[in-house]
């Protein structure tokens, strides 16, 4: 089939319109703090049969024809987009992080698959019609699919949420990322097996396909990964940057996709696994990953997400019952599953729930999974619509829930307590430290003598005067949470500050013995607040606790 000149015009117009609408609405969503992907899908819904197709059916059918060369060309682009999306998702999976986080990531990831999978599989197997099965002969595959659809996680949305909450580099952040990576690998592996159960196996039996799948995965992750790691430095040294390495990544991704498609597993699995093998290389620069991300996220991903809206009518295929069941199972399965896993691994209740809600984001991965199952005839359009809605709701709700459970964030402003801000008139540093220790000890019911000894011991080893009237006597002691007491002293006291200025604002900082990094973080936060001498001098003019705290917060 050859594209006519008119076909080419229509094709170019349709992709321009798709990109334009995706960009406009995607940017709008970014502006209001939501993922661009949500806006892009909505752009598709507006452009598709749901809105545009209903209002102007003739123009819609001309722009997005259902059965000519334009349709084939658009499908080709969308297929390429999905393959590349999975390739970049694979690039971000880092197996060494999964291995490093060990038991916690493993338990969280495994439970985050088992519980939602069991819930989804049981419901779909015993009540297939309730969940809109399309073909009764595919009951097992359908049940497996619903199970896995509830188990998948979306790493990019999760990482973005962690970044927004400022917990990307914390222990919980690492656990969530590692568990999500583990979840992704297992999820896509199982999904590929399901597709090979129902799809065209290119002449291979199911067992043959399964053996080929496992052999291919092991080959790529254990052997090819090491070869790639040796080739990349050569490419970066001898070929143009970034052209050489980008080409190499795309060629490997496409070849791998072609291979898995040939053996009867979908092409996306090949590109995902190859992405992992390439991304594992210690030589891949962050800049390379970013360039690939940019060109896929700005061109191919919007085309794919808009095409979702073009595929089905979201109003006629909206089934409240299916949406409700899928949403409830998705939330319960993931939050409880990952929560239990994290709890088993030793996290406390709130942190475990935060991990559960963090892992609950399904994002783009769910939509890719859904559209493939829909194209393979495994699910009805109303299940697909429900999955898209579930993906959007879980992605948007993840951050607020995590924020709620992580409300006790250990940053400086949260630790400050108004009843531990004192206006004093001491002349000796030991006296002021003693008073601050007494106040904290009284407040937190601690042994003041012990704490005083530890603070003084630390003070004697290196004096804690900083500059700009600040001193921070501190120690790591037997407490579970950090504590701060502040003295605003009328006269300066010599804490041997680097600028020679006597200290007038004395922060006593006590942190748990086991949390070395927290002490450093809080010390840096305090020092940074005192960089501007003029502001500190204004702070010294405050005459009561409320004024001091409010000025300090704004400084």
């Amino acid at each position, binding site marked *: 089939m050859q594209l006519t000149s008119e076909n080419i015009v229509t094709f170019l117009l349709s992709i321009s319109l798709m990109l334009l609408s995706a960009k406009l609405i995607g940017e709008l969503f970014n502006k209001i703090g939501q993922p661009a992907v949500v806006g892009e899908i909505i752009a598709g819904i507006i452009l598709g049969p749901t809105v545009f197709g209903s209002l102007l059916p003739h123009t819609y059918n001309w722009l997005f024809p259902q059965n000519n060369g334009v349709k084939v060309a658009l499908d080709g682009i969308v297929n390429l987009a999905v393959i590349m999306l999975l390739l970049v998702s694979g690039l971000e999976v880092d197996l060494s992080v999964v*291995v490093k986080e060990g038991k916690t990531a493993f338990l969280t990831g495994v439970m985050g698959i088992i519980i939602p999978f069991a819930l989804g599989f049981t419901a779909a197997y015993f009540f297939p019609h309730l969940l809109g099965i399309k073909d009764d002969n595919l009951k097992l595959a359908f049940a497996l699919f619903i199970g896995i659809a509830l188990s998948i996680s979306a790493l990019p949305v999760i990482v973005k949420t962690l970044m927004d909450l400022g917990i990307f580099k914390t222990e919980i952040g690492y656990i969530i990322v590692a568990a999500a990576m583990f979840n992704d690998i297992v999820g896509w592996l199982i999904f590929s097996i399901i597709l090979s159960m129902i799809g065209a196996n290119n002449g291979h039996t199911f067992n043959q396909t399964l053996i080929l799948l496992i052999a291919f995965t092991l080959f790529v992750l254990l052997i090819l990964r090491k070869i790639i790691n040796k080739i990349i430095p050569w490419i970066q040294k001898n070929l143009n940057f970034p052209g050489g390495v980008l080409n190499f990544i795309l060629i490997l991704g496409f070849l791998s996709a072609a291979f898995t498609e040939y053996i009867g597993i979908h092409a996306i699995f090949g590109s995902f696994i190859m992405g992992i093998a390439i991304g594992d290389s210690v030589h891949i620069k962050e800049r390379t990953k970013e360039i690939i991300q940019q060109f896929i996220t700005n061109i191919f991903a919007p085309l794919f997400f808009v095409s979702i809206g073009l595929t089905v009518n979201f109003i006629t295929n909206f089934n409240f019952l299916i949406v409700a069941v899928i949403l409830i199972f998705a939330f319960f399965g993931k939050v409880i599953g990952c929560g239990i896993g994290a709890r088993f691994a030793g996290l406390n209740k709130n942190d475990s729930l935060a991990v559960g809600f963090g892992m609950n984001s399904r994002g783009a991965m769910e939509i890719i999974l859904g559209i493939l199952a829909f194209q393979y005839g495994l699910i009805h359009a109303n299940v697909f619509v429900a999955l898209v809605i579930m993906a959007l709701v879980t992605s948007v709700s993840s951050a607020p829930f995590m924020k709620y459970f992580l409300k006790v964030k250990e940053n400086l402003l949260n630790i400050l307590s108004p009843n531990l801000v004192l206006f004093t008139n001491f002349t000796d540093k030991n006296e002021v430290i003693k008073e601050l220790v007494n106040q904290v000890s009284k407040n937190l019911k601690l042994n003041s003598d012990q704490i005083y000894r530890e603070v003084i011991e630390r003070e004697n080893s290196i004096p804690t005067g900083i500059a700009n009237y600040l001193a921070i006597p501190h120690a790591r002691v037997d407490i579970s949470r950090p504590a701060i007491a502040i003295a605003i002293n009328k006269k300066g006291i010599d804490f041997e500050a680097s600028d020679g200025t006597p200290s007038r604002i004395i922060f006593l900082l006590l942190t748990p013995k086991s949390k070395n990094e927290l002490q450093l973080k809080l010390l*840096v936060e305090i020092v940074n607040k005192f960089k501007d001498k003029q502001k500190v001098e204004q702070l010294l003019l405050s005459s009561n606790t409320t004024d001091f705290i409010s000025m300090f917060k704004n400084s």
Partner: protein
Amino acid sequence: MHFPFKKLGLALTFSPTGFALLKETKRLKELFNSEIVLIHSGKKDDESEQKIGEMIDNSGLAKQSTEIIWVQGNPANEILKVTKSKNVDLLIAGALEKEPVLKYYLGSVARKIMREASSSVLIIESPSEAAAGFKKFCVSTDYSQDSESVIKLSYQFALMENAHEFIIVRDIYTPGLSSAAMESGSTSNAEEVISIFQKEEEEKLNMFVRELNLKGIPVIVKCLYGREGWAERDFVQNNNIDIFAVNGKTKKFYFFDRLFPNELEFSIKHLPSNLLILR
């Protein structure tokens, strides 16, 4: 971790670098004023005994104060057993990476020692008969109490060596960063985020060093971005560091660590310089 090391153990071989390694060990023995145990894996016969005797004499070590233990069987396992039973504080071994015939076998002995020894381990990459000492130290930190001890101990070592450079490095790595940066839209990018993270980390690292109160050799701090363990290994290799000290105490090595290397495993697999693993 005891310092100075009271008892040194040397995995002594008849390889081409064996004698140079013995000279390096003798220098360290004198520096720390410690005892010395030579562990040789091989059959004890007249020829071998004579050979070791000559090596000791030529190195300048006193025979009567040098204990020699002969072991047979799996070299790595036997060396590890003696290290434990003799309460060795620092086990010294060669890397032998540059000896093609022996490379695989002996290289794997060194790696097993690095991973499993109960004592601290010093792997000397290219021992020299001149044994000039270590002048450029690099230590990695994760701010833990163990890594604090590693820095303090290495610093004392550096002072004894009259070292002229002492660098503390910290790796930071944020998996999934570029996709997260893209999720945020076009206003920020991964490199901006990395530079913010690096600045925050450098402030913490400077505070960390201030808290350690190290006096004598000026301390340089470096915050590196890259896969944990790899970025620092790369830095050490590219900056002609003489000795790289790491914390080996909290790390247990499992099969998967070797399959998908992380942290210390990168330096164990491909030595960036002489490596001091402190336990």
